[in-house]
């Protein structure tokens, strides 16, 4: 029994649709993880103790437990307390918050590393501390961590396969669907792998562009 790719074209629609869902969930979760990462970093560094401590527990929960478990908690667990999220939304929240915590660690380090003179210059002009953070310190910190955040986003793309277990019809689940009907796991997993690789290349190209465009502002 050799490889037989002749069954693939008949399932191309399904696979491509799955690819689109993977892109949609990755982009949505990436935006959430980016905005959340900035917000979490500012909370971790500057919020009053009463906010910071519960937040640390929350961050630890997301860094110290498996992403798969977090997805189960958000999708199945929340139903018990009356929150019934669509699978896609649960997937975006799970992936987004998980990577937001990782992004936040990067951004925190970068905020602390921004030259003290930047805050001083902004304050000297009359900006308040929060204005100086918003306009001067945080934008520089974020710019400085675009490459490692990019790495996190590639990891996010790959981990998006996990949302197949809560029933989001993305690439991996589409491949499984095709395999279920055709009994051709090798062919369809290979096709899915190629699709992931292509999306990956696209993301890397976008990231390189962003890096180039911010090069002057260093």
């Amino acid at each position: 029994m050799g490889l037989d790719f002749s069954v693939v074209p008949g399932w191309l629609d399904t696979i491509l649709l799955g690819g689109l869902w993977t892109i949609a969930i990755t982009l949505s979760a990436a935006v959430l993880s980016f905005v959340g990462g900035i917000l979490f970093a500012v909370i971790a560094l500057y919020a009053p103790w009463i906010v910071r401590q519960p937040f640390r527990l929350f961050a630890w929960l997301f860094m110290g437990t498996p992403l798969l478990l977090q997805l189960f908690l958000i999708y199945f667990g929340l139903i018990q307390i009356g929150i019934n999220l669509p699978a896609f939304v649960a997937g975006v929240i799970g992936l987004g918050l998980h990577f937001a915590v990782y992004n936040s660690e990067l951004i925190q380090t970068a905020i602390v590393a921004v030259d003290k003179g930047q805050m001083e210059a902004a304050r000297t002009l009359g900006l308040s501390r929060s204005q100086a953070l918003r306009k001067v310190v945080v934008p520089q910190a974020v710019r400085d961590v675009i490459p490692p955040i990019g790495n996190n986003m590639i990891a996010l793309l790959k981990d998006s396969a996990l949302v197949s277990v809560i029933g989001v019809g993305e690439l991996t689940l589409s491949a499984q669907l095709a395999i279920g009907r055709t009994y051709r796991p090798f062919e369809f997993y290979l096709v899915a792998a190629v699709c992931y690789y292509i999306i990956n290349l696209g993301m890397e190209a976008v990231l390189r562009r962003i890096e180039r465009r911010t090069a002057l502002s260093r």
Partner: protein
Amino acid sequence: MTDPQHFVEIRHAQKSYGKFEVLKDISLTVERGQIVAIIGPSGSGKSTLLRAINDLDPLTGGEIWLDGVQVNKKLPHRQYEKHINAMRQHVGMVFQHFNLFPHLTVRENVTMAPKLLKGISEDEANKLAEEQLNHVGMIERIDYYPSQLSGGQKQRVAIARALAMRPKLMLFDEATSALDPELVEEVNQVMKTLAEEHMTMIIVTHEMDFAASVCDRVLFMDQGVVVEEGPPEKVFRNPDQERTREFLRKHLEGAK
């Protein structure tokens, strides 16, 4: 305490870090339009004094008054923040290491604070940027990023950024110390222009020639006290204090 009689009044300024006293009971007045240079060896407290004027390094004792308002008055935290942010809009500051915002263009560096704090329109902001950058001879570089400028150019933009808030007082903290020697003159020229326009300035500097040529008054500080103070001709040519003489002699040797 009586009401202030002078444009800038520093009364019994005192600052200590733990047991170490950086400023010991310093009093100083500056009139509107005057230019005062502060010279002295490193560690003498001259930068600390300058940074106390806009509360970057808050004093531990004494008062600072600007144009009839006390800068470091005692207020509850939130009110104080509001008060100090408003005060700082009137005091421009130029740093040794420029501290331009690298993520913003020259234009944005100049317009960011006026747009944010004075709510001026995009048009007004652009006009303001052009006016201020013309003033310091940097209009050609208006859409450059700081990373594309030389040190002297950066410092001129930093001066334009401070002037865009239309300050009553300008503070210069060793504005030319980090520059290559051939770039010092262009920054000095800008400062001279400001002097001709009667901007009130307090200048911490190592450049005695420059201080002598533009300043109305020179303060020599050492170990947290003002050792000697007077017109530049007096302090540089014929100082009363032995410590001043020694400092100037060492400085001249270093310059050779």
